[in-house]
């Protein structure tokens, strides 16, 4: 098993227990009601990303990610820079793994990958929403069923950030997006960074290679 792939596999299995907890902050009031769902793509899109990942101990790896989305459907493939497909799956209210080379032949890895893609690309289902603001921008706070919270923070530079908190109100994921060129229509972020747990945890950096509306 090539070590770099082990690292990628471990991304989705890493425990958050030994990291400093970040709790759901109180919301400062605002009269604004921003449209936070505007950060999400509409319809069917295909993305290719260059992926860089790193673990808390400093180990790093690279891969290429292909994602085709049409809410709620996700098709994804993870491959090496040289083109070897390591993992391919389709999610349509149920997960079907099409190809998985060890150590990726694991439901836990597949489930974690799909959940992270859902977090990044699909809007929350909840209609339970509060609005607020902080120094970074305006916030939409979604209370999801069974407890998780999701803060969508819209910054003034057209970037955005997602903070997801578990039922214990401890942050378990954050996603930071750097916007692409200004355009009339929705454009995907040119760069995304997903962090598990906190800044000391693993990170997944996604640099956009191509995006296509299908």
């Amino acid at each position, binding site marked *: *098993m*090539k*070590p*770099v*792939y082990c690292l990628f596999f471990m991304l989705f299995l890493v425990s958050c227990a030994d990291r400093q907890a970040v709790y759901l902050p109180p919301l400062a009031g605002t009269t604004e009601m921003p449209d936070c769902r505007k950060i999400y793509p509409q319809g069917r899109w*295909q993305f*290719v990303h*260059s992926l*860089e990942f790193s673990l808390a101990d400093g*180990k*790093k*790896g*690279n891969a*290429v990610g*292909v994602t*085709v989305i049409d809410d709620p459907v996700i*098709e994804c*493939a993870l*491959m*090496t*820079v*040289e*083109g*070897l*497909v*390591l993992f*391919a799956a389709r999610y349509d209210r149920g997960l079907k793994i*099409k*190809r998985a*080379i060890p150590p990726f032949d694991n439901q836990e890895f597949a489930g974690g990958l799909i959940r992270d893609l859902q977090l990044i690309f699909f809007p929350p289902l909840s209609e339970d929403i509060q609005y607020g603001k902080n120094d970074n921008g305006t916030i939409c706070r979604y209370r999801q069923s069974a407890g998780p919270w999701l803060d969508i923070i819209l910054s003034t530079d057209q970037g955005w950030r997602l903070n997801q908190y578990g039922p214990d109100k401890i942050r378990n994921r954050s996603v930071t997006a750097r916007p692409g060129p200004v355009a009339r229509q929705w454009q995907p972020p040119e760069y995304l960074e997903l962090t598990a747990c906190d800044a000391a945890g693993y990170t997944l950096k996604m640099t956009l*290679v*191509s995006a*296509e509306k*299908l």
Partner: protein
Amino acid sequence: MSAYVKNIAIALLLLVPLLTGWADSWEALKQQTPVIKSVRADFVQEKHLKILSRPIISRGVFIFQAPGSLRWEYFSPIKNILLIHNGRTKKFIRRDGRLEEEQGMSLAALQIVLQEISRWLSGNFTENSAFSAGLENKRRIIFIPREPAMARLINKIELQLSDTPGLIDSVTIYEGPDSYTRLIFTNARLNQEIDNSLFMKK
């Protein structure tokens, strides 16, 4: 494992310039194999996936110098360099805007393929332990994995030779019904002087 696949492709590429006149039997190929000192060519890599509306295109260059020095470099979309020289292998990849050496590479697969290269450079295509080779007409060689474990990774490798003796058009690696990778080579130059530093520096 990716290094294995890549290096199979590289190795296949290396053997092709040895083929002059495109003989129609393994024995004839072996007899016609000339001495090769170096190869340099540009490549385009097409990654075809069923879910992709169009292939992912990567571009780069490969440089080989006998007996076993290699530079396999991607220029886009992701900068990436593999160097083999004097029995040592290094891989560099772009991270945070800089080229960093990848640590912890598994070299076993590379070593296996390098052993194969020496056979291929002698015109022995059928002695590969991992793949059986078949000559389809004078311009196409098909490699089929011998073991089921390898077949789960690679169904077939297809080598398409050029009209010009000694050159190659493409190498296609079939992973399954939904995925294949095609390497298309251009601007091939044989037996030119190559600076050794190209195999040592990123």
